[in-house]
């Protein structure tokens, strides 16, 4: 990365602040749709950080796969289970939240002391390689060939598994036999009737 150091520092600061704020929003927002869109913000900021780390190919892959595929998938899932649901309050829930927050802050303190206390023997001045794409391609087709092929098998398995798990079940429906027709089984794909979420305000439009 041949940017000036000041530019690098400033862009790192902006990206880091954006990422942390968006991640907090993902976790803390009440509305799940806001969380989903902020998740896209987190992914884009991380891709910017990858560019600061001299990794152009992985930054592009991050945007393509995470923002383009995973985030859209999550949005579709939110739309499919779009049920305005008020969770039943559970007694003592704030204790759990407080305890979890405490544990997380403690974990962060532990990790940061570890990071700051460890003497990293850094390599000599970093020179960005000519093209990360060529290096990654060489790795994929020489020493990481087996994991690369296994990844394709894994993706195929995940695709088939997701289709099989998420598909609707066939429910046989015995139609009442009329006088002359024989009894026959009708196969239908019933969709569970779902209530549409009421819109706020006076407008009668469906959301």
């Amino acid at each position, binding site marked *: 990365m041949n940017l000036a*150091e000041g530019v*690098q*520092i400033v862009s*790192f600061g902006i990206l880091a602040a954006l990422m*942390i704020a968006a*991640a*907090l929003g*993902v*976790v803390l927002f009440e509305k*799940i749709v806001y*969380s*989903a869109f902020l998740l896209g913000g987190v*992914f884009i900021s*991380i891709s910017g*950080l*990858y560019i600061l*780390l*001299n*990794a152009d*190919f*992985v930054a592009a892959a*991050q945007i393509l*796969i*995470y923002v383009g*595929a*995973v985030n859209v*998938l*999550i949005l579709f*899932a*939110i739309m*499919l289970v779009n049920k305005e*649901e008020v969770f*039943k309050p559970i007694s003592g829930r704030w204790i*759990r*939240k407080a305890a*979890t*927050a405490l544990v997380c*802050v403690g*974990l962060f303190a532990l*990790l*940061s002391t570890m*990071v*700051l206390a460890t003497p*990293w023997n850094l*390599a000599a001045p*970093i*020179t*960005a390689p000519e093209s990360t794409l060529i*290096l*990654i391609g060489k*790795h994929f087709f020489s020493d*990481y060939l087996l*994991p690369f092929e296994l990844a394709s098998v894994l993706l195929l398995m*995940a695709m088939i*598994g*997701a*289709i099989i*798990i*998420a598909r*609707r079940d066939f429910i046989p429906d015995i139609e009442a036999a009329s006088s002359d027709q024989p009894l026959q089984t009708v196969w239908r794909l019933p969709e569970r009737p779902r209530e549409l979420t009421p819109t706020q305000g006076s407008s009668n439009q469906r959301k």
Partner: protein
Amino acid sequence: MQLQLEYFLLLAAALFCIGIYGLITSRNAVRVLMSIELLLNAVNLNLMGFSNFLDPDTIRGQVFTVFVITVAAAEAAVGLAIILAIYRNRETIDMEQFNLLKW
């Protein structure tokens, strides 16, 4: 002053802790999946930082990041399918009510 490895590691640690907090406290099942994505991204950020600062010649960390992204995509697909199946069965996405395996 230059970008240091520690900055990226600290950032990844913060993202990881936020992800764990969301993973444990959220009651919406989709949000739990989002928190898992945050965790995986924190790990990716660590891998990329190490790849750039400790191993800039043979960037093996980037190769690992690509593999992690692949697994994350597969995980998201299967996880959302499972959530859809549970939603059809139980009519809710509240994590507190998925207690089928509780004894």
